[in-house]
């Protein structure tokens, strides 16, 4: 590097570099003898093998110590996120725009819903049990097959008019579209504190303006027997309960901002940073 401080011609520099790479007089390759390089390489090889081993060992012992059923800490997941189907994201969040007269624009949305609901066919749910109680389904023991816990059935027919069974187009061509609201799973989360949490949709910023909505199941509640969730290992067949909302009086050709909140103790929707915590906001525009 001393060369940097002295003015040298390019050819001299090249020559110096060549000599540095292989100096025939001292038999130095890049400033060291070959045997020296071998030793160094071996040392580094050993060093990195040991370090990799240490890393592997650390990860192995980490895996041995974590609880396979539930994470050690849940301080980051205090309140569940809420998602909407169909989910078309624009630059500024969910944007559901379609034109009634152009089939293509809403067929996409309908397909999304249909695909989403395939996980809720009776066939897909056949491993789950029918639940009737309107209380938390607390299981302290592993009663299910293969040392698992039981999960409650949720089939798409519970969504009635929005189940896609009677109306496979989910009301999109009529301008009365169905949306499905899903609450994120959190292990051992007891929403609502004994009362079933329910979905409530309003216009954003103008809650007094009436938005005519049909909720399915009735009142738009998530039945308590779907909670708590015990995790993937304990409840491999668990599926989230859903609420469908059908908007009945959507003004055409206007972009509307709608928010669907989940009302229930323990569910917060006032986190300014997170637009999907406890609520889901979206823009809806139906054109003729």
């Amino acid at each position: 590097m001393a060369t940097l401080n002295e003015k040298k011609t390019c050819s001299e520099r090249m020559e110096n570099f060549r000599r540095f790479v292989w100096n025939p007089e001292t038999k130095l390759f890049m400033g060291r003898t070959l045997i020296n390089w071998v030793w160094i390489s071996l040392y580094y090889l050993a060093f990195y093998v040991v370090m990799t081993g240490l890393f592997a060992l650390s990860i192995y012992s980490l895996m041995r110590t974590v609880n396979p059923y539930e994470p050690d800490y849940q301080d980051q997941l205090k309140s569940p996120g809420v998602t909407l189907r169909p989910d078309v994201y624009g630059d500024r969040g969910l944007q559901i725009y379609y034109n009634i007269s152009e089939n293509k624009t809403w067929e996409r949305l309908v397909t999304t819903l249909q695909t989403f609901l395939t996980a809720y066919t009776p066939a897909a749910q056949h491993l789950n049990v029918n639940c009737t109680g309107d209380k938390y389904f607390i299981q302290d023991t592993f009663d299910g097959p293969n040392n698992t816990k039981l999960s409650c059935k949720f089939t798409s027919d519970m969504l009635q008019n929005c189940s896609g069974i009677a109306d496979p187009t989910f009301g999109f061509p009529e301008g009365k579209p169905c949306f499905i609201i899903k609450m994120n799973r959190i292990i051992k989360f007891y929403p609502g504190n004994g009362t079933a949490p329910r979905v409530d949709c309003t216009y954003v910023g103008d809650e007094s303006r009436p938005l005519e909505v049909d909720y399915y199941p009735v009142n738009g509640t998530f039945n308590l027997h779907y909670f708590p969730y015990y995790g993937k290992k304990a409840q491999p067949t668990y599926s989230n309960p859903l609420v469908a909302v059908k908007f009945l009086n959507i003004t055409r050709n206007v972009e509307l901002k709608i928010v669907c909140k989940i009302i229930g103790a323990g569910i917060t929707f006032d986190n300014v940073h997170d637009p999907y915590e406890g609520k889901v906001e979206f823009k809806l525009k139906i054109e003729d």
Partner: protein
Amino acid sequence: SASELEEKYGTSINKGLSSSRAAEILARDGPNSLTPPKATPEIVKFLKQMVGGFSILLWIGAVFSWISFGIQFAQGAESPFDNLYLGVVLALVVILTGIFAYYQEAKSTNIMASFSKMIPQQALVIRDAEKKELPAEQLVVGDIVEIKGGDRIPADIRLISAQGCKVDNSSLTGESEPQSRSCDFTHENPLETKNIAFYSTTCVEGTATGIVINTGDRTVIGRIASLASGVGNEKTPIAIEIEHFVYLVAGVAISIGVLFFIISVSMRYKILDSIIFLIGIIVANVPEGLLATVTVSLSLTAKRMAKKNCLVKNLEAVETLGSTSIICSDKTGTLTQNRMTVAHLWFDNQIYSADTSEDQTTQPFDQSSPSWTALSKIVTLCNRAEFRPGQENLPIMKRVVVGDASETALLKFAEVILGDVMSIRAQNKKVAEIPFNSTNKFQLSIHETDDPNDKRFLLVMKGAPERILERCSTIMINGKEEPLDSEKAEAFQTAYMELGGMGERVLGFCHLYLPENEFPDTYPFDTDSMNFPTSNLCFVGLLSMIDPPRSTVPDAVSKCRSAGIKVIMVTGDHPITAKAIAKSVGIISATSETVEDIAKRLNIPVEQVNRREATAAVVNGMELKDMSLQQLDDILCNHSEIVFARTSPQQKLIIVEGCQRQGAVVAVTGDGVNDSPALKKADIGIAMGIAGSDAAKNAADMVLLDDNFASIVTGVEEGRLIFDNLKKTIAYTLTKNIAELCPFLIYIIASIPMPIGTITILFIDLGTDIIPSVALAYEKAESDIMNRRPRNKKKDRLVNEQLAVYSYLQIGIIQSVGAFVTYFTVYAEQGFLPSTLLGVRVDWENNAINDFEDSYGQEWTKYQRMYLQWTGYTAFFVSITIQQVADLIIRKTRRNSIFQQGLFRNKVIWVGIFSQIGIALILSYVLMAYWFVAVPFAILIWVYDEDFKLSLPPLPLTHPC
């Protein structure tokens, strides 16, 4: 003639200039002061700090951030402001560190500025036919000024009348003897002629009147000063080292950055993302806080040195002294006390030595002999020097004396031994006196005695010993007058030669009691006709004087020796004196001989001596003049002990250049204007704070406030220590770069969620790591740094390959592994097991996925994932911090085990450790458990390093030391 002069300068000798005319000339010529060397405009200095070092890289990072912000903003992406902020933060980092460095530098320059603002000098000027006191700055060509003993000459002046005027030209020519000045034109060369007195020299005695012929920069001194500013300023060694280090790190940063840019583009990342990775890699690689830390460390050392009387003008010079391999020292004032002092006496056929230390209060030699009584009387009486009144409370050695150097020495010597000299003189009333002059070379006075019963007059005489001896017929031995036979004359010669050979100025003393019958009370002594005997006197003794070395110098020189620093004396003085002083301070050691010494010992001609046998050399300025550069190089190479005598300012420059040709880092000490070119040329110029002229101080990098050579040794020690400690600081800082860089590389390759953010990296570099790295500057030396040779400029780099490799590829890797284990632990304990993280990046960062499933089936919104990612950043940050504590502890030492060095000798390290942890606690909120994940790795780092320090030999790798 006077009238020609009047005409030439448009003035009148009696009336001076008129005020209006003076004002005109002042407006034309400018004030009579030296223009300070052209300072770089502050704004340029400031901008330099903004673009120097790593700043360019960071600016590039900032610009890239803004560009990507612009693109994202135009595309209407959801969170483009992150990049805007990142760019702003990077720019702020550059600006703040720039301001900081600028402030530090300005602070040290300000100390110097205070120097030049000395008390304004006054000059006595005749203007409008009136005598006026004016500030010297307002003098103009043609002004008539009066000067008297003790004044500084306010401009270059042509004398038109002078009475016993002597000037001290030492600051200009280096001659230490005062020169007499008269109004006679004696030489073509203005420097040689007697009728010109130069700006900034001092008038030692007498009075004179003269016409100002040059002012300000047009004076001789002004021209030398501007010559000095023409000598280019070399880069300091530490600046070169830091540059080298910046190149190294920037090279690594750019090559890794570009490499991964290419990799990420070929892995089909978007160009925009690839640019953001590039920024991350640059930020991770650049130790943002390091240059500021280096500045702080240097200024801490500078402060410490200032306490020890070394004032550092240029911060980087702090280290230069540490790498110094040759010191070219001036003699007068630096090595010596710069005052004549009686060193030896010869009476009763015997040489006695006197105490020459700085603060003598008694003299130890035998004072019982009656000869001494006689001698002391002559010393007291035959002396015209007097103390300035009002200094009774000062120690004798510190009192100001009116009189020349030798007489001052004798007066102080007498005052120390006999007490109140003035009252002794009063008791022995002086009746006649012949002052010293260069023709008869003696001084004589006749006194009444203090014994009221003894009516005889006492004639006392002192002067050049051989002249005095000529006038004597007897010699006093043990108080008795004995005839001066050839045997006694021989003894005198031997003593005279011996004292002269020691480079001392010898004076002879004799006296005569005039017989009462021939010279009664009323005898009219006439000094012109000399109606009294001046021969057949009684010789009493010799006194020899020298400007003695400072008492701390021999020790300091031997310390320099053992530190491998060659001390060369460069002086304007006579070779014999120079050699004697060199011997007494150890610049020429007791056992070594010059070519001439060997010739004398073997009794062979100088030419036959094998030059290689002589370790010492005394080179005369005249010889130097005829030497080729090769011959000079030869001398500088082959002799370890060199004295240059009778050198001119230009020769000083040649000597310095010669030393630099040998690849040495050269320190030059000096005080006069004539030294300033050499001071500037030197790698580090050291000016004297007390005796030094402003020009010298301006040209120098460092000022010794106490003019003491020993302070240089302290400086060398501090300089070496700071170099060692900066190495530690850099090693400490570089290590974590890997732990900051790996996240980006693995993020790109394995597509895991980002382990650490760019801003978080800045928190480490500019937050937690700053105080610990400064704390390393307080580390004590590991071994005796003054017992090793100065570092080799070319080989002992601040950052060498070994240091970089050890930091980057070994300790850095351990740190990265530790940090990644923490990272995976955090994600696993929150629900994402390591296996789920690989390849997850695209979905993880997708805004449209708000039900992202973890290993346990829980679902996360985008924000929740981001929040977890930030927790990951924090944990990564915390684990780097924890491991940096271990890094700090291992970096305390480079060779010694921590058990040898001890953990508690440097208390500041603890401040560093606690601040590090404290800042991390403030900056982060993560579960305490995550703090401990990296602890085993921290311990591993320490154990690994201890082992490395223990077991160097079997491995071809060497520890970076």
